[in-house]
């Protein structure tokens, strides 16, 4: 018979997993609303306004619509692959949150139990996140290939090339942070940034590279070539409809949250902040600012051409990130 403490610990872990998953699944609802509102206001429109006050219930209406729409699978599609592709693209992004810390340890009032605000603190957390998000591209590739459609296939191929090109500078930019904080664990990285020693001060170049590369990794404008409306209709998800399509959308939003979370954890001191607010609030505020920034950029910049995308990735970001690692090394010596 295991001890009470062990059981409690396991229960806490299960509870945390459930809570994080629920939050991640429900996050796209407010985020789609936010994105539409920000888009509207940047274009001097109002955006959704009719469902609920200021249209806040619009995402629920959309969700209902997507649930009841017909799930169309093209006749010549690779059916099995077509079905699992959205799930393949979604699972890695959710799995990445297993190692994301959200705040300092907190004490639960009644049980008097210290609870850490992360599911797992891995020694190789950054590596794990970079590796597992890399898998998300398979959903896009398989979705594109299995649809048996030109546009979808082109979108899939583009995203393949894009992911490979930008994973390198992104990882190398993260290596700069790892070098100065001397740990791969996200908790340690955040703790090393206490007292305003945010990594952005020591790694401005690294942050820029990381940010640009993560924009490309999560397929957002200006690097959203896999779903380029102008040339590919909708890219890899042309043939998708109903819930399978919404899984792709869900992935995109959760990936955006993950990119914001990573940027905050690695470069902006995580949950560190002035003490008048709890750590988790600081964390949420910083992440929201980043999410807004992502949306803001989306409605400001045009899309890059494919060759420009490759040029930026290989000829600018990669050398710059290597240079960044070199410089960081010199400073450490």
């Amino acid at each position, binding site marked *: 018979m295991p001890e009470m403490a062990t059981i409690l610990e396991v229960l806490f872990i299960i509870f945390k997993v459930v809570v994080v998953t629920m939050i991640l699944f429900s996050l796209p609802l407010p985020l789609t609303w936010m994105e539409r509102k920000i888009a509207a206001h940047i274009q001097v*429109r109002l955006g959704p306004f009719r469902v609920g006050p200021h249209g806040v219930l619009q995402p629920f209406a959309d969700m209902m619509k997507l649930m009841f729409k017909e799930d169309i699978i093209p006749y010549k599609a690779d059916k099995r692959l077509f079905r699992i592709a959205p799930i393949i693209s979604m699972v890695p992004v959710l799995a990445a949150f297993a190692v994301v810390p959200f705040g300092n340890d907190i004490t639960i009032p009644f049980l008097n139990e210290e609870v850490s605000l992360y599911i797992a603190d891995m020694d190789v957390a950054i590596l794990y996140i970079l590796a597992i998000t890399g898998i998300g591209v398979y959903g896009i590739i398989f979705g594109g290939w299995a649809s048996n459609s030109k546009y979808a296939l082109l979108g899939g191929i583009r995203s393949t090339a894009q992911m490979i090109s930008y994973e390198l500078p992104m990882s190398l930019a993260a290596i700069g942070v790892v070098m100065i904080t001397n740990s791969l664990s996200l908790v340690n990285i955040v703790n090393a940034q206490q007292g305003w020693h945010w990594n952005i001060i020591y790694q401005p170049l690294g942050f820029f590279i990381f940010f640009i590369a993560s924009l490309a990794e999560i397929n957002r404008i200006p690097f959203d070539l896999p779903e380029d409306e102008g040339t590919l209709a909708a890219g890899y998800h042309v043939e998708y409809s109903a819930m399978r399509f919404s899984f792709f959308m869900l992935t995109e939003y959760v990936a955006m949250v993950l990119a914001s979370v990573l940027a905050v954890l690695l470069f902006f001191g995580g949950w560190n902040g002035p003490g008048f607010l709890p750590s988790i609030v600081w964390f949420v505020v910083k992440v929201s600012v980043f999410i807004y920034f992502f949306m*803001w950029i989306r409605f400001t910049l045009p899309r890059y051409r494919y060759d420009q995308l490759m040029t930026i990735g290989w000829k600018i970001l990669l050398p710059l990130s290597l240079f960044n690692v070199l410089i960081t090394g010199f400073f450490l010596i």
Partner: protein
Amino acid sequence: MSDGYILEKRKESAVETFFNRIFFIDFIKGLSLTLKYNLSRSITLRYPDEEKWIPYKRFRGQHTLNRDEYGRELCVGCELCAKSCPTDCITVIPMEDSAGRGIADRVARVWEVNLTRCMFCGLCEDACPTEALKLGREYELSCFSLSNAVMDKDRILIAGQGEPLDLEATGAEPKGWMKVSLDSIDYITPLDFKKGDRVPANYEGGVNAAASLERTEDGIRVVPDLSKTKKWW
């Protein structure tokens, strides 16, 4: 750049270009512009649920046939509007009437305008010698059948039905028929006439009024509330 039309771009030096590239100056400029728009007021009206645009007086919408202060029809059936119409959408058939319906002993028996052809150019309005014809403010003209799109005299002749307006209340001096000033008449735009909501002819317009969408048996209509208006843009 005194008052030239061509905005000449100042030549950047190599150092400036380098500086701009390194610090993403153009990028920041773009972002600040979009942020400005993000914080500025939206130009979208919540029409038809909450707001409605009240056009200016000069607006050329649905035609109206007016009356003078005594409630007589100003239209004398001269057919000048029909002649001047570039799209041939106005039909006028005059008739004799000495019962005092009109200002002269000739009135229009039929006055029709086909709104599917009309382009609201306002030439008919200019041609009208008695200022009977006016393009009003009404712009909600959609309908379900084409026959409804032909506006006849019954539907566009303004209210009054032969009864003189209360001159004492308005304080207007009786004038000759040529000199009728529409500003002084509190007339009702014809499509609204039965429903009792009024945008007075002398109302300046160009505002955004609170409105409500009403569903009646005849269809839906947007009723503006002129007491709650705001300047818009």
